[in-house]
Each structure stands twice: as structure tokens, then as C-alpha cells.
């Protein structure tokens, strides 16, 4: 606040000497956070990803205003209409309709809501439990560490999509259970990152100093140690969105996630699959959406890895 007040006031000493003196001052040191943002903005991959994600987020938020029609409304007289550029198509349904006459464009727009939601919920589950498990394992070490990390190894002993399928198979197919399964399956990735960082930071002077000053375990973990492993966690979270969206679409495609008539991209593909001989558009567009949404998060995650955490580069 003070700085801003100074600037807005008329400068009484705008003599050339004063200006020169000010220019000679060393530049203000930038916080690591701002420096990271700066590098991120200069990273073309990250920016491309960010743009794609923004488009999808806007689509999800503004779906009721963007979608030309009700995504669930059936119109039996308008079944399997092709997109508008096809001679048989019309501007009533820009991307055509499915076998129930539902407007494909509207369903795709509403589908972005579900995919963003899936990403958010699954990543929150794995981030929360993964961070907790990793922090506890790294901080307390010994038997507890061994027990937690062996369990994480066990989860990693399954191909992740298989484990998600099996969990949903036992819990019963639904979007909620699919999100849960995908969240659980990715917990080890976060736990490993956090545990590694905690082990690395724990013996550093600042942590031991804080401990000597009487800081409790919780304060040491959350206030002192965790902020220092944020960079790899942010990267993993972004990439986690990508894999969560992809896996949820796969589960829904197999009939184990979102159930019809929910406008979910994977479920739409499953429906379109029966139509591939007659309606290529019912297959093509939902899949493109999945591809772009996943690509957006992968691009951002990749760019972030380069910008925020040079150690992680491969």
C-alpha cells in the first residue's frame, strides 16, 4: 500500500540525478513464486495448455448459455442428422444428432462439466490422501513408513486402469464410484513425491531450528516442510487431471462410469460405437473433446515441469 501511495504522489525530486540514482539501485529480488510464473508465461507449451484448459473451463461454466439445446431432449424426427457442412445437415444441429435425435454439440458442451468435475474430485481424493500418507511416512519413518509405502507399492502392482475397473466392478458402476476408484488408484504417485520431499527437507537446519523452538509435528509438516515440495506436487496434480479425465472417459466408455443418458464424452462414444457404420460424427466429436482436454492438462503439466522444477526434467 505504501509503495503505491508514493508512486501516485507527484514526485518532488524528479531531478535527473535522482532518476539516475534510482536506476542504479539493484532490481528488487523477485519471489520464487513470481519467478516461476514468469518462466511459465515464457514457456510456450504451458501457455498452449493453459489456453486449451481455459476454453474447457469456460465451456463447463457457461454450458447452459452456450449450448443451443437441452442435452437430454430427444427428437425422434431428427435422428442421426449429420453436421451442418454435410448436404443432409442443417444449422439446427451444428454437429449433428445421435440416434435419439439429441443435439451433439449441446451434449459435448455439457460433457465438459462432467469431465472437469471428474478431474477435480479424483485429483482432490488422491492429492489429499497421497499427501497425508506420504507426509506421515516420511516424517515418522520406521515401521509406519514401511507399512504405508509397501501398501502404495501394492497399488502400483496393478496397471492403473485395471485396478480402477476392478474397484468399480465390486462397488457397482456409477460416475461417483468411477471418480472414487480413479482417485484411489493415483494415491501412490502423490505419496511418493511427498515422502521423498519430506525426507529431503527433514534434516535441514530450518526444520530442526523450528523444532528446537518447540513447533509441533503438524506445524513442522504443514507449515515448514510441505510448502517446499509444492512445485513437484503442482506438476503432478496437473498431470493427474489429464489421466483422471482419460481414465474416467475409459470407464464410462466401458459402461462402468457415467450411465446413459448422462452427456459424458466416454459414454457418448460407447453409444456412438454402435453407429460407426452410419454416423461417424457421433464417434468423432466426443473423442476429439477427450483428446483436447487431456492434451491441455498434459501440455500445462509438461511446461510447468520445465518452468517450476528443473530437477524433474527428463
Amino acid at each position: 500500500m505504501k509503495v503505491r501511495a508514493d508512486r501516485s504522489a507527484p514526485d518532488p525530486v524528479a531531478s535527473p540525478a535522482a532518476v539516475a540514482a534510482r536506476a542504479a539501485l539493484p532490481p528488487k529480488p523477485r519471489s520464487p513464486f513470481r519467478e516461476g510464473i514468469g518462466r511459465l508465461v515464457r514457456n510456450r507449451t504451458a501457455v498452449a495448455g493453459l489456453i486449451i484448459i481455459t476454453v474447457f473451463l469456460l465451456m463447463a461454466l457457461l454450458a447452459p448459455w452456450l449450448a443451443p439445446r437441452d442435452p437430454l431432449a430427444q427428437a425422434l424426427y431428427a435422428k442421426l442428422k449429420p453436421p451442418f457442412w454435410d448436404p443432409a445437415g442443417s444449422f439446427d444441429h451444428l454437429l449433428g444428432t445421435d440416434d435419439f435425435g439429441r443435439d451433439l454439440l449441446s451434449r459435448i458442451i455439457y460433457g465438459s462439466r462432467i469431465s472437469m468435475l471428474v478431474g477435480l474430485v479424483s485429483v482432490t481424493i488422491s492429492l489429499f490422501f497421497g499427501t497425508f500418507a506420504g507426509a506421515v511416512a516420511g516424517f515418522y519413518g520406521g515401521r509406519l513408513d514401511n507399512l504405508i509405502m509397501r501398501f502404495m507399492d501394492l497399488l502400483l502392482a496393478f496397471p492403473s486402469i485395471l485396478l480402477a475397473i476392478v474397484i468399480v466392478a465390486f462397488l457397482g458402476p456409477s460416475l461417483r464410484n468411477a471418480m472414487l476408484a480413479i482417485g484411489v488408484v493415483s494415491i501412490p504417485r502423490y505419496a511418493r513425491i511427498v515422502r521423498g520431499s519430506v525426507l529431503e527437507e527433514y534434516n535441514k537446519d530450518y526444520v530442526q531450528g523450528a523444532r528446537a523452538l518447540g513447533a509441533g509435528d503438524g506445524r513442522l509438516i504443514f507449515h515448514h516442510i510441505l510448502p517446499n515440495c509444492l512445485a513437484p506436487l503442482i506438476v503432478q496434480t496437473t498431470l493427474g487431471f489429464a489421466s483422471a479425465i482419460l481414465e474416467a472417459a475409459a470407464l464410462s466408455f466401458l459402461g462402468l462410469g457415467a450411465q446413459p443418458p448422462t452427456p459424458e464424452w466416454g459414454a457418448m462414444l460407447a453409444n456412438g460405437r454402435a453407429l460407426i457404420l452410419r454416423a461417424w460424427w457421433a464417434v468423432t466429436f466426443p473423442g476429439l473433446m477427450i483428446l483436447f482436454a487431456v492434451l491441455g492438462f498434459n501440455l500445462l503439466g509438461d511446461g510447468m515441469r520445465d518452468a517450476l522444477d528443473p530437477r524433474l526434467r527428463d
Partner: protein
Amino acid sequence: MSRFILHRLLSLIPTVLGISLLVFLMVQLVPGDPAEMMLGERASEQAIQDLRQQLGLDQPLYIQYGMFLSRLVRGDLGRALRTNEKITVEIAERFPATIELSLMAMLFAVTLGMLAGIISATRQYSLFDYASMILSLVGVSMPIFWLGLVLMIIFSVNLGWLPLSGRMSYNIQLQSVTHFYLLDSVLAGDWKALRDVLWHLVLPAFTLSTIPMAIIARITRSSMLEVLRQDYIRTARAKGLSRFAVHYQHALKNALIPVITVIGLQFGILLGGAILTETIFAWPGIGLWLLNAVYARDFNAVQGGTMLVATTFVSINMIVDVLYAWVNPRIKVN
């Protein structure tokens, strides 16, 4: 070396035991009574009771696990609900199909992926480099169940070049001995069948290969770039060796070490991806079988199939570890 292999082999035991415990406990996730879920709402009380008894669901948990383990050790996974056939027999018939598909996919992924990676690295910042790196990013993000459908529309429906689905045409007669159709047709000396089987493999294998291919391309490129910066490469160039000799005889060998690890790890992704690919192409492998067991709520079969796939997965990882230590002797037991 033999000590290392022994060590890794022994470490497999607790892992497999852990997997079995996890797979066993999964039945506890079922909301309500598993036996009732398996037989459906219209089953009689007697039938449900019988199934409960047959599955041992009326016993305490630790006894159930003991029974589960002892059956596993004896290689008895029970019978499939739908066919009443032994689960081990059903798996044995279908697993070769999945292995054949995965190996073919890996062949695509390794050859095309490494080729793209090497060319990208030796021509860094060229048009080819940019194009292949963008393509590999797209490849990593690819929903393969969608790609499979699109390839089907293009190459089977519109162009009619490749068969739509399945492992073999109906009019081909092949005596199946090993259940590996490629091997069977070679053994029988039936070239017409071999051609047919190969044709059926192309689309599913390519679909399955996209993600590993993209990852292999990226790793090969970065590993190759790393090696090309080393002093001994500069020395080789200074000696006047040809581009080819420098790149392929000096650089590639050392650049391959990380690539091998990645290739090994991709097998797991292939096993998972096979479930999706097999569904799309009606490929009669373990993935499709497992999924049908899921649809039929045949929990016994799901457990058996999962057990098998997970065990295969960790075994492959172990083999990769051993191979890695063999290629790179600096890594040893610790």
C-alpha cells in the same frame, strides 16, 4: 548377478502375497451380499445359500483368505459363473491372444518410437523434430478406445483395407495348438492363414501401441541428446568418423539404457490398455474376458483374472530390473 536375480525373485513373493490379499479383500467392497449380487434378484434363497457356502462366504474372513490362498497355490481359481468352465482353462485359452496383441503392439511402439526419437535427436529443432514431438504429446493424451474406432471407420469401413474385428476370418480353418495364431499358422505352414492373422492384428496392435510409442519416442530423443553432448562423441567426430558411425555405433548404445527401462514399464500399460483395445476390436483376449466377467458380476472370475494380470505385470517388472542390471552393471543390489 545370480545373487541379484535371486534377490529379485524372492522379493516377488511378498508382492504376490500382497496382491492376493488385496484381490481377496475386494469382495468386501461389494455393497450387500456378494452371492445375492452374483445370482441376481430372482434367485431362490436356497440357491443363494448354496453359493454362499460354495464360495465360503459363511466362514470368518481369515479362513476365507486361507481357503483363497490354498486354492491359488493349487492353481484352482474355481469355475466361471456363465460357462461353468474352469477359470484356469478359460484364461489359458485367452491369454495367448492378449500376449500376441501386446507383443505386436510393442513391436510397433519400439521400432516406430525409437526411429522417431533418434531422427529427432540427430536433427534437433528440425521440422521433423517439432512434428514428432507434437505428435508424441498428442499420442500420450490419446483416448485409445476412440482412436481404435476412428481407425476402424477409416481403414475398415471406408477404405475396406483391413478387417473390422476379431483374430481371424471365419472362412479360415486353423488347427490351434498353442493359441498363438501367428505361431500356429507358421507351424501348420499355412501362409494364407498367417496373412489373415497378420491383417487382423494390424489395427488393434497399432491402436494399443500409440501411448507407449509416444513415450518411447520422447525418452529416446532426450536420452540420445544427452549422450550426443558427451566428450567421447566429440572425440569420435574429431577422429573423422562418419555421421552414421558416430550416431549409431557410439551414441545409440549408451542412449538405449534408459529406453530399455521405459520399454519394460510400458508392458504394464499395454496389459491395461489391452482391456480397451480388445473391447473395441472384439479381440478374444484376457481383457475382454475380464470385462465380460465384470458385466456378469462373476466376482470369482474377476478375482482370478486380476490376480493373473497383476502377477504378470510385477513379473515383467522384475525381468526388466534384471535386464537393466545386466545392461548397466553399475546398478547392483542394495
